[in-house]
Each structure stands twice: as structure tokens, then as C-alpha cells.
């Protein structure tokens, strides 16, 4: 059983087909890049996987179960989403403590992960004043709280500084080496080329490439392969 399975996942918004019968599986302990142009359905697929949106047809499974059936979701799968919000009136630490309490995770974990993502000096400040990169780091800390075996990252490098990006790359590699499965969506193809093992490419809701990085790029750079696949001008 693969950690993540999309089985004929379809999501329609009125007449718009955001995701069209997506079938794919993500391998354990590998970093899979989830690529595609704006509006191709990446975030929508991930939101269906995480039980935030209900699929029109098909399913998306985590360790063979629907997200809502997981007993300890945060310890199974952590997610950094593009719209995952924090209460601006609460401090970074308070925002995480709210999550800790609901998930029966000790509060001490919150401080631990805030240190890990380099937010310890800002953790007592209200998140209203956080920069984009700081919010992104806070999201990452939230996703890691339960020590999940699977990580979903939707454009995690958004707003991160070069040091943060390099740190994230090494950090994710370390996690994958110790068996964590990672699915990461990003438009930073040059960065992704160095970070991922496998690739899924989706365009207009449909899967158009699926394989290892070498299979999908066929000797080209990831960017060249991307343009070839989605038919963009270069």
C-alpha cells in the first residue's frame, strides 16, 4: 500500500473541471514533485486528499484510508497549504498551542518546532505582524507537530529567503532519508530539480507525466521537460 493514492479523483466546480480523473500513487520515503501551470488543479487535489474539499468522483487515500477516517491525522500526515491560515490576533506560539491541544500533542513540541524553523525570537509576537516567509515557517512548524510520516507541501518556498530555501531542501532530504514520504508542489523548477526524486505533472486537471525525475526529464532539465509537456513557449 502506498502512502498516498489518488484513484480517479475528480473535482468539479459547477461547469469547471478542476481535477479530472487523477490516478497516481506516491512512493514511500521519496520526495515527489507535483508540478503544473497555475490553475492546473494541484491545490485542489491536495485539498481533496486532506478532506478539506469533497471530491465529485473518485477518492484520495492516505495509508489506504480517507483522511477523515484517520485516528491521529497530524501524526500521520502534515500539510503546509497555500491558504492555511493563522489567527492574526494570536502569537505564533498560541496558534500552535491551539493545534497541540486538539491533537493531544504536548505544548513543549510547539516551542521545539518553532526553534527548528528559526522562529523562536518571534514566537511571542502576534502573527498579524509576520512576514510571508515567517508565516510559511510557522505553517511548516504546524505541519511537523505530530511527527508525521507523510508531508504535503503546497508551494512551501513561497516567501522563503535563500537561506530558508536551502535549509528546507536539506531538511526535507533528511526526512526522506529517514523514511518520510513527501509530496511537494512548486513552480521553482530549478530548485525542484535538486530536491525531488519523482515527478507528477498535471495540466488542466489531467495527469500528463508520472515517473522518476530521470524518466520524466529524459536527460533534459526539469524546466525544458516541463515546457515540452505543457506546451509552453520557450
Amino acid at each position, binding site marked *: 500500500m502506498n502512502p498516498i493514492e489518488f484513484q480517479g479523483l475528480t473535482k468539479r466546480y459547477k461547469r469547471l473541471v478542476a481535477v479530472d480523473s487523477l490516478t497516481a500513487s506516491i512512493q514511500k520515503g521519496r520526495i515527489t514533485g507535483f508540478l503544473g501551470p497555475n490553475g492546473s488543479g494541484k491545490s485542489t487535489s491536495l485539498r481533496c486528499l486532506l*478532506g478539506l*474539499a469533497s471530491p465529485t468522483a473518485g477518492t484520495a487515500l492516505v495509508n489506504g484510508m480517507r483522511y477523515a477516517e484517520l485516528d491521529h491525522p*497530524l501524526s500521520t500526515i502534515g500539510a503546509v497549504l497555500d491558504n492555511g491560515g493563522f*489567527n492574526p490576533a494570536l*502569537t505564533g506560539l498560541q496558534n500552535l498551542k491551539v493545534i497541540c*491541544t*486538539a491533537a493531544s500533542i504536548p505544548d513543549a513540541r510547539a516551542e521545539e518546532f518553532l526553534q527548528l524553523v528559526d522562529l523562536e525570537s518571534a514566537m511571542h509576537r502576534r502573527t498579524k505582524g509576520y512576514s510571508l516567509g515567517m508565516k510559511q515557517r510557522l505553517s511548516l512548524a504546524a505541519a511537523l507537530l505530530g511527527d508525521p510520516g507523510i508531508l504535503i507541501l503546497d508551494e512551501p518556498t513561497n516567501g522563503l529567503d535563500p537561506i530558508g530555501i536551502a535549509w528546507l531542501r536539506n531538511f526535507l532530504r533528511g526526512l526522506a532519508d529517514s523514511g518520510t514520504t513527501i509530496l511537494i508542489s512548486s513552480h521553482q523548477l530549478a530548485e525542484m530539480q535538486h530536491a525531488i526524486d519523482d515527478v507528477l505533472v498535471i495540466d488542466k486537471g489531467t495527469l500528463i507525466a508520472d515517473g522518476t525525475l530521470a524518466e520524466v526529464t529524459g536527460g533534459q532539465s526539469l524546466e525544458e521537460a516541463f515546457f515540452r509537456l505543457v506546451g509552453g513557449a520557450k
Partner: protein
Amino acid sequence: MNLISSEFRKLAYQRSTYGLILAAVALSVVSTAFSPFAIVQLSGEINFPLSDPNNVDGIYSKALSAYILVVVIGVRFMSGEFSHHTAVSTFLTTPKRHRVLAAKLAVAAVAGAAVNLFATLVGMGTGWFALQLYPNVAAPHAHIFWDFALSAALTGAVLCVVGVGVGALIRNQNLATTASLIWLFLVDRILAVIWVDGGKYLPSGLVTSLMNLTLSVSDKTTSLTINTSDYLPPLPAALILVGYAVVFSGLAWVSTLRRDIE
């Protein structure tokens, strides 16, 4: 239990909660402190002698005004999840959404009851001091202390739950807050006076019924009359209020359990 504490933390960490508690107490204090003054000023137009214990009960009843702001606590508690997109992490943490909602409603009920009770007690205390300033003031009936305290707790619990329902339906926090304030401060209170037949089933009319007052006031210039015997007896009023809590919880339930979270 974890979910209850988590929801409680959301309220307790939020500074605006304390602002609203203060505002609720202030509303109760101001309403109670100024009503003897207003009545004495208006003694030409209305006949409301403070030597009548029923009328003194009426002054103390103003202490129950705080429920209007207790609703806002519930509204912001729920609509904030959508306005700030914290619903995403809430439901990622607990995908069984009905459990989150049950915890939120329970916390809202307890917090609403506590805040309204506190504001009412402070308001009644203020009323006692205010009434010392006037001559020939009768003592209130002894039963009002318990009647008002119970009414305050029940009203606070119900209206905070109603607020959660409103916040689930109107997900824009500011719009939801403004809409509930306009409704409760103006529409509801006006209807309870000018259209008693319907208004007695609305929150302000039900709160009046709950308090079990015996009042009859008429304004000579506008010929508007308030007569508490037009309102419902306390028990049916309490049941209807609880009915509001059930209906609005139900609305929160159906609007939150299935829909996509942005």
C-alpha cells in the same frame, strides 16, 4: 475533552474576547445606572414611580442588556475560523468536523452563560448604588436576584450559541458582527415594543418574559405602552429560547459539516 480545551484556548488567547467581556459589563452597568436617572427626567411623560417595587425590579432588569454583546463573542468565535482560514488547520487536526462543532458549541454555551451572568451581577450591583441617589425608592422583590441570575445564564448560553450559528452562516467576520448588532440593538428591541404579538417571540421579548416582571409603562407623548402581561410566561419563554439555540446549532451543523473549506 482535548477539543473542548482547544476551543477554549481559541477564545481565551484572543484579546478581543476580553474587550467584548468588558463591553458587555459596561453595557449592563450603563443601562442600569442611567435608567433611574432617565425615568426621573422623563417623569412628565411617563408614570414610573420608584416607590413601586415592581418598577424597581424593572430598573434592575436593565442589567440583563449584556446579551447583545455576548452574541458577538459567539459570532466572532465561529466566523473567525473562516475569515482567518483557521478552519483549515482546525479541520486538518480534527477532520471529524461534528466533534469540533460540538466542542465549539459547548464552549460557547458555557462562556456565554458565564459572561452574561457576570455582567448582569455587576450591573445589578451598580443599580443598587444608583438607586441610593433617589428618595423613596422601594426595595426590589427578593425573587429577582435568582430569577435574573438564572435568566442571565440561560440567555447568555443561548445567545452565544446563536452567535456561533450566525458566524457559520455569515462567514465574513465583520459583516456577521455588524448584522447581529444591528438586529439585536435596533430591530429586535423595536419590534418587541411596537409589535408585541410577534416581538415577544424574538430574543429581546423572550428575555423580558424570562425575568418575570410585572410592569406597565406608557409614554404619554407617543402613547407607546409596555405591559409585561402581554409577554409570555417565563417557562415557555425559556423553552423558546432553548429552541433558538437548537435551531442555530442545527444551522451551524448543516453549513459546516459537508462544505469545502477554503
